């Protein structure tokens, strides 16, 4: 009979009279236990060995159990402190006793909850008594801890502790039971016959080698079987950051919808960030508390003079006879001050003005997915730096219906249907809408963007003579909605947990 080498080795090490454990066979054959186990199962299959299984239960103290074995159970310490304080004659203040016992933190609760149960005394209205008849040295749990403290992974049968006490210790988390399956192997009669007839070792091959292939030997060999179900080693390949994946996805969608991408400065003049947007200079969002103004450098060198003049006039007088402008101060020095852009709409104003890539002729669609900076409180839904999706469509005679249709189409790409449009106010758009969508999993109505048709007072100074509708939203918010992430900080920044990034689900 021909058998693989490890099976032959196991058969030769096993006996027909005495059951041998897998570990013992592994020691005898000098093979790893898992190889022996595999060989044993294969031999059992062909009826050469009989396998008996039994479950061994071992017990060991937990770290907490070891601690109490060393320095007594908390309730015993409490009892001794209560005795010391005279609690055997009169009830004493519990706080004082706890102090004297040296118990701290969760140990106090543990002591109190076991104290009365074990008859050490009574705890009532903040006072404690100690039963003079109680005897810590007869405490079954304490004694069991002592017994077990020397015996690691002892078989249950071998320790001299009653089952109830073991159960109680386990309930208190002081003891852990471990079950292990022990397989014992005996040779069958057939095996004995085969052994006497003589066994041959069949050649098995672990690895396909160049030699094996070129020599043609591969035709005669048997390939060792693998446990193909076992987990392989963890492999950490590279991943594109989850938020980048989301940003790529958004860019794909927008490019597919005919949008061109914009790019431009992060540190920019307030003129481009706010004044060109027809944001009055005394608007609360332009105060120190919301923006990251720059100390150095503090001002932009140059702004297009004629544009500055037109923007200032729009702020002061409005556009057209029936228009009023703002009753707010306007100062060029304030407009020239630099800040980290609070929204990427500064890119839109630069592009619309013709300053960035020259005059843009309608129809046109532009977008960016870039960082904006806002001086907000850092929490689960707000970051100081976030990615803003910004987009606009320029065409003759756009209506709010076009705006609604465009945004419904965009959000539908991310599975967000039933967009609602809540009329809203922005200084630079009219009409304006906050966009609400239904969360795909929770069904909640959630704000997912802000939109509107740019005002005449904004577009006219920029030299735009047709309609422009625009919208913006935070990429992080879209990512949270579509990935179900709950804390924005997991997604973004140096607090990143590699484990989170390595395990993040791919977005496509």
């Amino acid at each position, binding site marked *: 009979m021909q058998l693989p080498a490890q099976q032959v080795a196991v058969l030769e090490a096993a006996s027909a009279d005495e059951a041998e454990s897998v570990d013992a066979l592994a020691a005898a054959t000098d093979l790893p236990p898992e190889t022996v186990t595999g060989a044993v199962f294969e031999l059992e299959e062909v009826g050469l060995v009989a396998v008996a299984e039994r479950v061994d239960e071992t017990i060991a103290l937990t770290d907490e159990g070891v601690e109490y074995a060393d320095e007594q159970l908390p309730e015993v310490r409490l009892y001794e402190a209560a005795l010391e304080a005279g609690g055997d004659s009169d009830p004493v203040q519990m706080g004082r006793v706890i102090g004297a016992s040296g118990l701290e933190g969760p140990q106090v609760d543990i002591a109190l909850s076991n104290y009365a149960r074990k008859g050490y005394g009574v705890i009532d209205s903040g006072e404690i008594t100690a039963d003079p008849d109680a005897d810590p040295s007869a405490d079954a749990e304490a004694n069991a801890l002592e017994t077990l403290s020397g015996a690691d992974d002892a078989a249950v049968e071998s320790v001299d502790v009653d089952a109830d006490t073991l159960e109680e210790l386990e309930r208190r988390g002081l003891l852990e039971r471990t079950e292990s399956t022990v397989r014992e192997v005996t040779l069958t009669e057939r095996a004995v016959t085969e052994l006497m007839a003589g066994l041959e070792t069949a050649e098995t091959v672990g690895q396909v080698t160049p030699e094996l292939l070129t020599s043609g030997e591969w035709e005669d060999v048997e390939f060792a079987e693998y446990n193909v179900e076992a987990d392989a080693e963890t492999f*950490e*390949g*590279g991943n*594109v*950051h989850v938020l*980048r994946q989301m940003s790529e996805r958004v860019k794909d969608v*927008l*490019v*597919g*919808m005919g*949008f*061109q*991408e*914009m*790019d431009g*400065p992060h*540190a920019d*003049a307030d003129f481009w960030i706010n004044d060109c947007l027809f944001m009055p200079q*005394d608007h*609360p969002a332009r105060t*120190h508390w919301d923006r*990251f103004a*720059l100390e150095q*450098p503090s001002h932009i060198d140059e702004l297009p003079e004629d544009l500055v003049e*037109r923007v200032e006039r729009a702020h002061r007088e*409005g556009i*057209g*006879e029936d*228009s009023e402008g*703002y*009753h707010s*101060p306007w100062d060029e020095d304030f407009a020239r001050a630099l800040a*980290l852009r609070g929204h990427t709409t500064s890119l839109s104003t630069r592009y619309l003005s013709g300053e960035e890539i020259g005059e843009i002729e309608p*129809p046109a669609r532009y977008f960016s997915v870039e960082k904006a*900076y806002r*001086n907000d409180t850092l929490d689960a839904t707000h970051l*100081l730096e976030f990615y803003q999706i910004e987009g606009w469509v320029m065409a003759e*005679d*756009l*209506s*709010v*219906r*076009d705006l*609604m*249709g465009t945004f*419904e189409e965009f959000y539908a790409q991310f599975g967000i249907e039933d967009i609602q449009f809540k*009329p809203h*106010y922005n200084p630079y758009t*009219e*009409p304006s*809408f906050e966009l609400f969508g239904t969360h795909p999993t929770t069904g909640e109505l959630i704000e997912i963007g802000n939109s509107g048709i740019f005002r005449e*007072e904004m577009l*006219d100074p920029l*030299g735009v*003579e047709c309609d422009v509708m625009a919208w913006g939203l935070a990429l992080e918010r879209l990512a949270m909605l579509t990935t179900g992430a709950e804390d924005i900080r997991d997604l*973004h*920044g*140096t607090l*990143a*947990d590699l484990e989170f990034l390595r395990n993040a689900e791919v977005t496509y």
Partner: protein
Amino acid sequence: MPTVDIDPDELRELTGREEKSDDELKDDLFGLGLEFEGLTEDGEFELEFAPDRLDRLSVEGVARSMRYQYGDARGVHVPSPNSAEWTIEVDESVPDERPYVTGAVIRDVNLDEDALDSLIQLQEKLHATMGRKRAKGAIGIHDLTMLKGGDALRASENASGDEPRAGSATEGASTIQYVGVEPDGDRFVPLDSDEEMTPATVLETHQTGQTYADLVSGYDRYPAIYDDIGLFSFPPVINGRRTEVSTESRDLFVEMTGTDQWTIDKMLNIVCYALSARGATIEDVTIAYPDHELVRPDLSTKTKTVAHSRIETILGIDLDPDEVIDLAERSGLEATKSEDGETDDESTITPLEDRDGLEERGAAEGSETSQTTDGTASSGALVYDVTIPPYRVDVLHPLDVIDDLGRAYGFNDLEPTYPDVGTVGGRHERSRLERAVRTQLVGLGFEDLLNFHMSNEEENYERLEIAPGSDAYGAGEPATIKEPYSEDYTILRTWLLPSLMMVLERNTHRSYPQHLSEIGFRAALDDSENTGVGESRHVGAVLANHDAGYEDAKARLQALARNFDVDLETPPTEHPAFISGRTASVVIDGEDVGIVGEIHPKALIEYDLEVPVAAFEFDLEALR
């Protein structure tokens, strides 16, 4: 966004809709753009609103809007004030920084607890919004019976030491004076106090005074209002106790001071409308400036001319003129049809005189499409003269009227359409390059990171032992944040390596190897840029493992260089963050654009790392 507290019972009473349940009210309020945030401790609705309709900052204004919404009110209503008995005389001594004042007298007001609370809330909310925290406009409301009118000569004496002027008030009328006083020029008892103090003392010791001290502390003279008895108001800081309003008050004197006449006049209108809704009578006040006189409140309406075609374009639907007029009335406006020819031409054509092509445009489009982009129309087209009530502060342009019409129509009743406009989409070149390099890095096994652009000097320079402005790679002078609130975020990072090291530092409990990369924004001062800030993207990478070394980093750099078909050289260099003799400049196509090497053990210790780290960083543009 701001919030306003509204008592639902009062809302039911003022709208006359007693039958409305709380939930129905919430829905109706949402329709107005007032979002229910929750209940206050007193069971009032806390409503969040967008800061345009400041006439809805109190229950009276919200009730007015709801009556229009329900169709219980239509068109424009303007209260008729009685003629002026009181004059506010503005003295030459008034501080230049706060020259404007306005006012009104309110008679026969029934101020129960609710009405008084509502008035106080309205005052606070107006301060917070239009008043720009009292800087632009501040409101003082006084019990009129406590005021004694006169020519207030005493005030002038105290004010500036000038020769007393003769009172300019009309014979028989009562006059109070708006003046400037020396910081310690007079004394009065402010609200919430029993002590007489000078304005300067108020700013130092009174709680409200301390809060608003910044508004006036730079003035030479402080604003003050006097009646015949003496100083009774110290705007914009605090009123005197003598004229405090209570539920017993029947007649009120309202004054407002500020930096802009229009702003305080509009704030005054909103207050007058709110009190008028409570049944009070408004009475004019004469404002006597040194060189001119005004009668206030200014309850005149404004007219905007709105083109029918523009309404249809913006809403994307066809409308009958009667429908437009109906929508206007339901918005609390009034619209009358008018052919464009009947109105003044000047008011309906956008002045585009400084723009090329205007004449051709006018000639070519003439009578056909006929509208200009600002919502007005050129000759012959149907337009509406729309009357805007005096409490509206948000109608700057005819477009704002169209928004009102759309709201009344119901924007959500409009059918969305996808605009039939073809455009070609595409990515910016920089963004395509970034994506291509990122794909390569991930293929080389790097975990792509996304770190903050803001940092601080310690993280950006000190922990890696480089000095700002030194020759070391990454050590550019930083763009700095003005008055930062957090010491963690005071500059824009000048390079990426510190961010990557921080991520290694926070992940020492995670398995190795840790190969991290980032293609990220960085910035440093650069005089040649218009903004003074040179912004660019760097490619940064770290390899942390028990056997990581220079070769590992260089091998990956070489792979990148090969794939982007650029020429890579790595001549030796020195850098404080790297081990001497194991550091090289990254020279791509002959230009020195980065650094590669093994991180110095001192830095490894600094970041609590127990494994070697090899790293490289270079300018993304070098691969272009």
